[in-house]
């Protein structure tokens, strides 16, 4: 039956309802495009015949094929667009460098889209407040506590906090530190917020 492959693409995404990105189904897409080409060519032939020989009985099949073509286009664009939304969510979750296993699931054009999206977002954030800039991918949650428990992931040497105390950040040591002082180091991967 026509359009079955297109529906399969949609179902593939529906199965992963948690927003995960499955591998790009190049094969599936190609099959749908081939079906569209075949339908279009059949229609071209029939339309010419209908005009030349007055074959009005061909018109219902022409209409049916046209509907299938539209449905295929709609399903394909829905599949591609939904993937873009998942990829967009990755920028907000993982930052501008994607984990390699995710990148592996993206086709070249999607990587290109992501790269362009990153750039747009970065230049938007830079331009905020009259050129001052604000990283709105941070501060995702309202600040709750003044101090947080952190674990040191790598050796970072000495670290001074506001009241003058110096802390030695040695790998695997744990500390109870003011949150604002740690944010930068958490982002860099030097510290890890420990939530008990």
């Amino acid at each position, binding site marked *: 039956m026509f359009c079955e492959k297109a529906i399969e693409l949609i179902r593939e995404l529906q199965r992963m309802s948690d927003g995960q990105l499955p591998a790009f189904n190049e094969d599936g897409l190609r099959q749908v495009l081939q079906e569209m080409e075949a339908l279009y060519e059949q229609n071209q032939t029939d339309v010419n015949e209908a005009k030349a020989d007055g074959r009005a009985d061909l018109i219902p099949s022409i209409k049916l094929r046209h509907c299938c073509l539209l449905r295929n286009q709609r399903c394909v664009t829905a599949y591609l667009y939904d993937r873009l939304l998942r990829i967009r969510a990755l920028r907000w979750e993982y930052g501008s460098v994607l984990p390699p296993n995710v990148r592996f699931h993206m086709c070249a054009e999607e990587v290109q889209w992501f790269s362009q999206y990153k750039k747009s*977002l970065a230049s*938007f954030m830079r331009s905020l407040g*009259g050129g001052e800039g604000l990283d709105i991918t941070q*501060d995702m949650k309202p600040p709750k506590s003044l101090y947080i428990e952190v674990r040191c992931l790598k050796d970072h040497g000495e670290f001074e906090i506001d009241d003058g105390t110096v802390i030695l950040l040695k790998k695997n040591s744990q500390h109870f530190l003011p949150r604002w002082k740690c944010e930068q180091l958490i982002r860099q991967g030097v510290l890890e917020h420990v939530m008990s």
Partner: protein
Amino acid sequence: MSDVLSDDGSDINHDDSQEDVMTPAELISKLEEAWLNEKFSPELLENKSEVVECVMEQLTHMEANLQRVKKGDTKASIHRMEIDRIRFVLSSYLRCRLQKIEKFFPHVLEREKSRGEGDPSLLSPEEFAFAKEYYANTETYLKAVALKRMPPNLQTVDMLKAVPEPCLDSFVFLRVKERQENILVEPETDDQREYVVDMDEGSQHLMRFRTIAPLVSSGAVQLI
């Protein structure tokens, strides 16, 4: 607000010369109102870039003042928290707008294009640039990956039709700031009839966004 701000009298912010000087507390209150309205509204609201800019200036001043406070002073941590809270509200506000811009991108651009000369703009210049780039990027992508491989009469997609519009009939909670009389409520189904309500100052309601949208823009109601 806090004495960190009053250390330096020049911290009081100035908007454009047309507007009155606002105290920092008023500014933050305006930011919070804009934030709540944007969060609860189904469609993108007018941009408040003057508020955004002033708040950013405010944050810079507060950070600078904080550097001057004696180290170890317990007030410092409280001011720090204040700064973080304000920055959170600001970031959340901007994120909310960006999400709506991305979600409804062709409609947002269309609204901006077709607004009247004197009407306030929906998007800030930066948001407008971002929206256009997002549109172009998405269109280029769809063409490159699939549309150009489709039959000749199917190589374009009408974005305005393909991307859903915001649902203006969603219900929102609101609190009335300025008394309103004779607000016309349209019927939802064929059996209902339209009716008129008066809304008292301070009262709270649950209504369709479409009915009270102009009141949100004018500041007569606050979404909650």
